[in-house]
């Protein structure tokens, strides 16, 4: 009985991993098809634009050609991958920690959005603080001891290397 339950559970896990893989493959293919269609439509726009520019037909024709090849290749790969289950195991292994990079990426995007309004130094201190808290689970003192010297030290270093980064609300260095 127990053996049967174990087998059923293994089958369920395998089916769920297969569904996740199928969904991820679908997203890959959909993105590639979208880029292919964008290429074709923009290429046609360039070809049909009334202009005196020499070579407009070949400028547009080139991306139409690339877009068409991308769509044809994506359809071929989709058919090929639908017939095989080759990524199932890889996907089931990597699903568990899938969220870590997404959280880091979200923090990174917020950091980038804050660089101009807050300035490099403050945005960096904030990003380091949140990152160390979320991923490192460090205490407040450790976080402050790492993030503040890094933010101010790196600001000074970039300025010394003549790199002009956004200063935001704090006009330093």
């Amino acid at each position, binding site marked *: 009985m127990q053996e049967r339950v174990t087998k059923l559970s293994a089958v369920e896990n395998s089916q769920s991993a297969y569904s996740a893989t199928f969904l*991820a493959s679908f997203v*890959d293919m959909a993105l*590639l098809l979208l*880029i292919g269609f*964008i*290429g074709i439509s*923009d*290429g046609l726009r*360039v070809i049909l634009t009334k*202009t005196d*520019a*020499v*070579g*407009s037909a*070949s*400028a*547009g024709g*080139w*991306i139409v050609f*690339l877009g068409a*090849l*991308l769509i044809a*290749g*994506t359809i071929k*790969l989709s058919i*090929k991958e639908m017939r095989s289950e080759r*990524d199932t195991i890889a996907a089931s292994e*990597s699903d568990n*920690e*899938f969220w*870590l*990079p997404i959280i*880091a*990426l979200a923090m*990174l*995007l917020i*950091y*980038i959005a804050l*660089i*101009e309004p807050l300035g*490099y130094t403050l945005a*960096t201190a904030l*990003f*380091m603080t949140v*990152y*160390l808290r979320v*991923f*490192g*689970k*460090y205490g407040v003192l450790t976080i402050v001891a*790492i993030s503040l010297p*890094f933010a101010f030290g*790196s600001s000074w270093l*970039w300025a010394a*290397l*003549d*790199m*002009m*980064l*956004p200063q935001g609300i704090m006009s330093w260095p």
Partner: protein
Amino acid sequence: MDFLNGLMTVLTPEYLAYSFIGCLLGTLVGVLPGVGAASAVAILFPFVTFLPPAGMIITMAAIYYGAQYGGSTTAILVNVPGEVSSMVTAMDGYEMTKQGKPGPALAMAAIASFLAGIVGAIMVVLVGPSVARLALLFGPAEYLGLGLFSLTAIAALAGSSLLRAVLVTLFGMIMASVGFDDSSGLPRLTFGTTSLLQGFDLVPVMIGLFGIGEVLASLREQSSPITTKIGKLMPSRNEMRAGLGATGRATGICLILGLLPGMMPSIGSFISYSIERYRSLTPQRFGKGAIEGVASAEAANNATAMANLIPLLGLGIPTGPTMALMLAAFTMYGIVPGPLLFTQQAPLVWALIASFFVGNVILLILNLPLVGLWVRLATIPYPILAPIILIICLVGAYSTRNTMFDVWTCALFGMLGWLMRVRGWPLAPLVLAFVLGPMIERAARQVLAVSPELLLHRPAFWFFIVLGGLIVWLSYRFTIRGELTD
């Protein structure tokens, strides 16, 4: 004579300092877990742009081979390969560490890298100018053939599926088309926005794909603390004999293979290691601490990297992501690698080649005494290291053209690089398509403008097409594909 002039230039204090700083920075970044040579060059690229042309290119080259050596140090001592090619070194190197012989493994890695680097540099001196002279005969048809061959070879060698690699290549070529078209001046794929008119710059794209992408992909990996003492450095006489033999064979094989586009150091390491194990009378020792395994992987790594420079300098064709960045470094100063480089920029080219010799000597002197420092760096907790690398990546992207557009581009391609790694899409064809796409487009449009019939009368074009087909066939035949990207 040209080479001697180059050597004299590099031996001046200023250029020695560039080489030294490049080796030091490269090793420093290369030892960090999850940061390979391509990532190290991409991350550090914007920080050396204030140097004079020769200084920047010499520093970049030194960063490249410094990072490669750094990756193998941590691979041997803590089983944390900085990049894919160091994984081969880790197979036997870490086993030697566990057996209490980290010193001989490190020394053999340094000696093999040094010898392969020196022999490779000699080959660049001997073959580079001849390749450049040959390329003087090339017209648009030949460049079209060469570009198509390069992309085909890269696609064939870069991933587990040729079709996937081809799709990535096409995607990269479409991305490279964003912005003003050079010939007609018409905007393409800009959707009416002004920021997209400038197109995507290679440097933020590379920093994103390799720097941010690798950090995101490495978030789940943990490094293990080192407890081993380095102890005696020099290998025994028998170990030295076995290691030098493997070094010679790997160097010979990879100096030839490295001339092919797509033949990156990682692939050279895997091939040399496999050959060494195949020809050994005791193949069961491989993976359990065979010094030949360490020597062959390290020599192959450096020999391929050196051979990769010949198509770049002679033809202007990058063979991998790192060479694409080297190309970007040249073009930043209006220097076009290719047939005329050896005549029009002779002092710079020969100084660069001479710097390979000097750099390899610096690495040998620098690395063994500083091993303890590199190991301590490699064991910094990743939650501290990761945000620092991410911030440096973004600052690097910003400093390319001082626009936030490049920072967003870097983040976008970082996300793409991570997703591609997770989903098993190869990265190298994307970068190479980004660089070679415009060249192929230009050549194809020139050929079409004259007459497509031109191709029928150009045997060199057909030679490259047949060669591309042959590589695709060979990659299936020997199944040397897999996760072998830089």
